[in-house]
């Protein structure tokens, strides 16, 4: 006889435990009452409508849910919203939320076709912002290594690497360059 596993703990409070969390999201202060079990990813998607945070696995492997927390990439499916209290979260909207005025990193992805379905793309663009933040020049091999924590099923990665390099050139200056004006906002 096989029996499906289940929790016999009927006292589980089914998400009724809540806390108030205050944080900054894309430059704005946010205070919300959230269930303590709510992941940061679900909080951003469901409470703040930031549906650019994509869930590919919800167990910390695919990296599609990557956001920047105080400038460093984290997997928002592995964190609780309450753990982000007092910190600064950036989603891809922090680059640009406006399709007609893309940030240089987003422009570079468009130019190099560093995306196909677009599902991993916000995560990849944020990772690009993180590694390009200090203006360092990377080799293709280094970029390959740096983005390897995020899975992309569509592109085979080459055009993403090209996009990161193109974005780096744009941000560092030189021909066709643009400054990352939104950085540190």
């Amino acid at each position, binding site marked *: 006889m096989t029996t499906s596993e289940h929790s016999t703990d009927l006292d589980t409070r089914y998400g009724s435990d809540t806390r108030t969390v205050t944080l900054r999201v894309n430059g704005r202060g946010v205070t919300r009452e959230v269930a303590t079990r709510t992941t940061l990813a679900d909080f951003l998607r469901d409470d703040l409508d930031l549906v650019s945070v994509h869930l590919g696995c919800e167990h910390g492997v695919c990296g599609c849910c990557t956001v920047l927390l105080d400038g460093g990439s984290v997997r928002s499916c592995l964190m609780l919203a309450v753990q982000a209290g007092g910190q600064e979260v950036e989603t891809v909207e922090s680059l640009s939320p406006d399709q007609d005025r893309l940030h240089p990193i987003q422009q570079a992805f468009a130019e190099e076709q560093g995306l196909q379905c677009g599902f991993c793309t916000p995560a990849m663009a944020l990772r690009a912002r993180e590694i390009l933040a200090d203006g360092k020049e990377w080799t293709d091999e280094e970029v390959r290594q740096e983005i390897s924590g995020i899975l992309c099923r*569509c592109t085979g990665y080459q055009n993403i690497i090209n996009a990161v390099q193109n974005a780096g050139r744009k941000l560092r200056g030189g021909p066709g360059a643009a400054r990352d004006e939104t950085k540190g906002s």
Partner: protein
Amino acid sequence: MAAPDIEKPRYKYIGADRKRVEDPRLLVGRGGFIADLKMQGLLHAAILRSPAPHARIVSIDTSEALQIPGVVAVLTGEDVKAHMNPCMNFGPPTIAQYPIAVDKVRYVGEAVAAVVAESRYTAEDGVEALVAEFEDLPVVTDPRKALEPESALLHDDHGSNLGYERTFEFGDISRALSDADLVVEDTLHWGRSAGMPMETSGATARPGLNGVLEIHCNSLNFSYLQFLVANALKIPSNKLTMQPVPAGGSFGSKFTAHKVPTLAGFLALRTGRPVSYVEDRLDHLMNSDHHGSDRYYEAKMGVTADGMITGLDIDVVDDYGAYLQFGVGTHGNAFSQAVGPYTFRDLKYRLRAALTNKCQQGAYRGFGSEVHNWVLERMVDKAAAELGLEPEEIRRRNFIQQDQFPYKIPGGNIYDSGNYPAVLDKALGMIDLEYWRTEQQRLREQEGRYIGIGLATTQERSVFSSTEFWFWFDEPAFPITSSPESATITIDPTGQFQLQLHCQSMWGNSPETVSTTVVAEEFGVEPESVNVSYADTAHALPGTGPGGSRYTVMVAGAVRGAGRKLKKKLIDIAAHTLEVAAEDLELVDARVQVKGAPEKSLGLPELAASAYFFALNLPPSMESGLEESYTYDHPYTTLPSPDRTDLGVFYPIVGHACHIAVLEVDPDTGQTAFHDYVAVHDAGTVVNPKSLDGHVTGGAAQGLGSTLYEELAYDADGQFTSSTFMDYLVPTANEVPPFRIGHVETPSPYTEYGIKGGGEGGRLVTPSVVSAAIDDALREYGMRVRELPVKPADIVEAVQGAMARS
């Protein structure tokens, strides 16, 4: 040596490296994916999945779950049995499937109950609180043993675990093998992998106005097959509207993926409220509609002493898992290019489709043709090795030549056009094989390192037609012959373009870029200025949907057809207004002008204004408005012969590719690393080179995954052992090498602009080329890749086995 330039007409937009029109919205994170869709009062579902591979469902206690605040309903197989018909099914009717298991479960992960609740969190609490009891049944995991009479039965109504069996023989295989100077034989196994898009399947259903059920879903092909979902839900087809939602990747896994939308529709009907069900990754890994092929081969190939292939004899058992939802269509794809690019005429193909306690099979990029190509190329490599021929040499000797097209292969399909030597030459021109062969020797001798060179080709069949759904049967129930695609172009009253596509086709390919490029080519407007939308099934004209690398070809035909009709109307209005003969007018750069006197012209806004607002200025009997639709039927389909010695033309737009890889293998650890990888593809006229390169690269990366990393594994007891991304290894950027890509363009004579499909080719050849490179690297150990995926431990084991024997 470089490939000769093949002449084709010059286009202004087609063939240019343009940015994709889909990208701006995706880059700001507004792709409109299914999980992003919110609506008032939306409920969420979570699924209890079977922990047992084969068992009778004894009881499901829902009482605890229903006590949880926020849980609205729990539905089980009993509800499904009472209120549904079986799901759509192209296999035998004796193998019925429901979106929730009825009476018994047949694989680990099959749905047992659905909990519907106010939030997904609460729905999952509800699943935790369910208590289901199962009575275990004997488990069937080995597909060959499944066919033995004493094996336990998956489907009592079907009476055996053999889903389908037939032997097709084209030509005379025994003569071909007895005439051969050498017959090579092998036993090969292609293991299970899957499309595994980063976005899972999902659907949101809601009871709408007038009793119409609306299902929003990211599955494809429902302009074609919506009525089958309605049938499963026991509602009239005009009371179901399926609303297309862009998909975050598919690669086959969302091709007619019907169980998720059918289930969401059922839950919405039963609760009377909107319900969303989006698979989580565990759901998708163990219960997606589509795992890929899982085939066991006995193969024989005959060759003459000078390397000419005489025939191929295939005996394949395909492990379809517990259900046969699409019949054996994945083998039709093998038949479409069964002889590869080679001239041999004799082929025997015995197919047995086995039913086992595993997830059902469906589509994965290549749809089974990639598996056949791997077997074919494995056999060609084996013959070459035994004859002492280089891989490029044996292939070149056997190629179908340019003056033989259109070429009818054994089995009846047509290859429309091609230039295989040009593709091979281009690939050889991009890499210095002589250097690498010398380097291989040097590294082996001086540094004790092992590099291998693999070279393989593939055909890239594209644009399936529907006869392949039924040529398997002598008396098919529904011998359909249509597989069209449609487009509607509207010029609005101000002269702006709207383009409507009639199926869901955004899944990471670029249907909007392709179709607006065609509008641009025909009308001289910029592609970005055209707005694209997708029709729901209540409005859709005939549309089969993407799959089998058909969409670019088909939508180009549909858009061009609609464009021709609309151009004629514009010219007729202009002729009437300017009082000149229509023959003297032409449409250039979004203006209708007099030939030779372009100053006498009318722009689109002026013509549109006439069409919408000045009926008295229109030619007599012309209808107001500027909208035209066109349904483009499959460009070349013929009926199979009644005795099935000829399966007819069903996949005639055929590209070609050649890949060459230089791979280092560490015999002590089984680790592999690429030194170089060249991929040359001929997909006919290229619409957007960078997009095509992207598809070749992405496809090749998936082929690499199927070859070295990805496995949907079941243990001997039928337990599924790949239920997370920690177990199922999708290649990361570290595993995928930079591919150097080249193109040859041999336009198709049968399609608009000469386009061929190019969406799958990358995955069709990587498994062959990587297998060959591993063999070549470890030749002294007698390495022969016979089973995929070939993991590091397999390589180490083969090397150690060889050393122990020597």
